């Protein structure tokens, strides 16, 4: 579906991303795993057009995508933001729905059916906070409200930065279930997750990022085999062990 090749991002002398390459397949949930400071957010901001890329290209079916093309193919949901803090959740959801409605999706990418606001509100358990202002929400509530915005925006690929951050166990499971449901309906997900347990629960494939470099890409068995080959030990189905072995 999409292929990133040799993406590089520098902040002055510091190189945050070194020739990062990976691919996103249609309808999958791809997990971007890495410790804090590994470049996950930088990679997402570069893909989302919020930060300029210093090198590399993003291809769609072999055709290079400009930043503008990318904007119509994917939507990046940042972590740690509280957009329009003095407005209510209801208003914010209606706003993103109306604002992004009809904004062109890439013709070559199939667009999953856009869920109704009522469905998303129900799936993410937002009824009780619909009339609360965004600044009044707790971290977990804000995260769920943001996810709802992301799901309502008509883009084939959703990039969500730390979608489980601030959620308790029950909420994490519910959100993972919701994301899986949308992926099953055709929406492609690329999730940046630093809690490996959360990633293992929800993702189909993984991109391991450490120090701004990709250390591995594939399904858990593929990564496990790669880790075993590198370390010379037996393969394991524990993603944490695989991650430690590869990074």
């Amino acid at each position: 579906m999409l292929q990133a090749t040799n993406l590089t991002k520098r902040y002055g002398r510091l190189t945050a991303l070194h020739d990062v390459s990976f691919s996103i397949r249609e309808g999958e949930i791809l997990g971007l795993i890495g410790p804090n400071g590994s470049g996950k957010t930088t990679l997402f901001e570069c893909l989302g057009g919020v930060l300029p890329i210093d090198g590399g290209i993003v291809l769609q079916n072999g055709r290079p995508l400009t930043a503008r093309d990318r904007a119509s193919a994917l939507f990046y949901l940042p972590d740690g933001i509280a957009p329009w803090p003095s407005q209510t959740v209801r208003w914010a959801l209606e706003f993103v729905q109306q604002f992004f409605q009809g904004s062109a999706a890439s013709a070559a990418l199939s667009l999953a059916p856009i869920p109704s606001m009522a469905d998303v509100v129900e799936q993410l358990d937002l009824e009780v906070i619909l009339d609360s202002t965004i600044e009044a929400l707790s971290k977990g509530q804000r995260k769920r409200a943001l996810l709802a915005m992301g799901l309502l925006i008509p883009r084939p690929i959703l990039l969500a930065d730390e979608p489980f951050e601030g959620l308790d166990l029950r909420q994490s499971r519910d959100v993972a279930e919701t994301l899986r449901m949308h992926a099953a309906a055709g929406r492609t997900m690329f999730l940046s997750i630093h809690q490996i347990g959360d990633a293992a629960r929800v993702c189909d494939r993984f991109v391991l990022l450490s120090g701004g470099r990709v250390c591995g890409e594939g399904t858990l068995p593929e990564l496990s085999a790669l880790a075993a080959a590198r370390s010379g030990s037996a393969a394991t189905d524990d993603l944490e062990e695989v991650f430690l072995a590869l990074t």
Partner: protein
Amino acid sequence: MKPFFVLLRKEWRELRASRAWWVLLLVMGPLVGVSFISAVRTYAEASGLNGTAVGVGEAFSPLVGIWAPTFSACELAAAFLLPFVAIRVVSGDRQSGAIKIELQHPMSSFARVGAKALVLLGGWLVASLAPAVAVLLWKSYGGSIYAPELATVVIGHLLNAGLTIALAAAMASISDHPSTAAILTLTVTVGTWIINFVAAIHGGVWERAAAYTPTAMVAEFQHGLIRLDVVLIALALVLTGLTLAAIWGRLGVAVRRRVFDSAGVFAVAAAAMIACTFATASWDTSESRANSFPEADEAALERIREPLHIQANLAPEDPRRSDLERRALSKLRRVMPALQVQYVSATSIGLFEQSSQHYGEIWYELGGRKVMSRVTTVEGVLEAIYELTGVTTPIQNGAAEFRGHPLAVPPNGAATVFYRLWPALVAGAAFFEFRRRA
């Protein structure tokens, strides 16, 4: 609904959620009130209220006596309050992170900034209801209103607000933090005052530049003068500010590219502004023809085809020079666009040049003929020109002379309206607005 209108509606909602805007609204009433009440009192006294001697006709022009001081409150608000409202609206999205969501819409950055600017202008118009109330009060007192001159004052302040919005938007986009944007905006504002100050001392190029500062622009509009070059330059500056805001709002574009684009915008804007200075058309909308010679004189002057050259040996800070410039030469330039004026002085204050042989002389030259005069009044300047050109001094039409509109009425009820009713209404509206959201 088109995305631009969705955004426009969102910006309007965000403006209503901004405390800075409500503070601007709250302060606007008393600010206008102080100016209006004081102006009406002075006007009434000049008109003979409480047994004072009646003044001269010019003092009875509502443009000078009422509108200029009343609307000066808008100038104050535009310089010190409006920038904070604009910065809040532009920086708010960056601070909350909303910009990272909005930026992912394919809409152009200029359209996004345009929506904010339109809403801010709308917010300013709401704040301008305070001077509008002053107009209604004046009418209720039986005061005279001459629509063209009042409209000119309103247009001047609207342009000034546009300049403030564009400047604040540019600074808010360029800087990462609202407080930095506020400092930069006020620095530019103070910078224009410094230009005015330097112009008063050194004259020359500074004097020309000072004619296009917001303070000078507003002053001309407040005197009922619309100069095409001033309007065009103000619009060019507004467009430049908004374009810079749009360029720096594109977070996904490399900083080097944004700097390059900004340099291009500056170059184009500078060229456009220099071109605008050649526009000489102007309109005197004042009822008293405050910016024009009497009609008979204008007709006589328009018949002079050769270029007139004036050399005035007066220092920039010499009060005679400002008299000559303000009362005579500014009017002369409107009738004779080819007029060339040269000021000559060795010092800025002229105090120690008084004894020099030619100081104070004003030389008029036309077609090789020269005439010297030391008079700086309108009559003196016209007399010298007529003598030089051999034109007979035209007979003035006394009936057409502006006699003024004296009004010896105190500002009854204005204090209640501006100090009690206005703040109560604004506070009430703010209360309902915030309670609705809570």
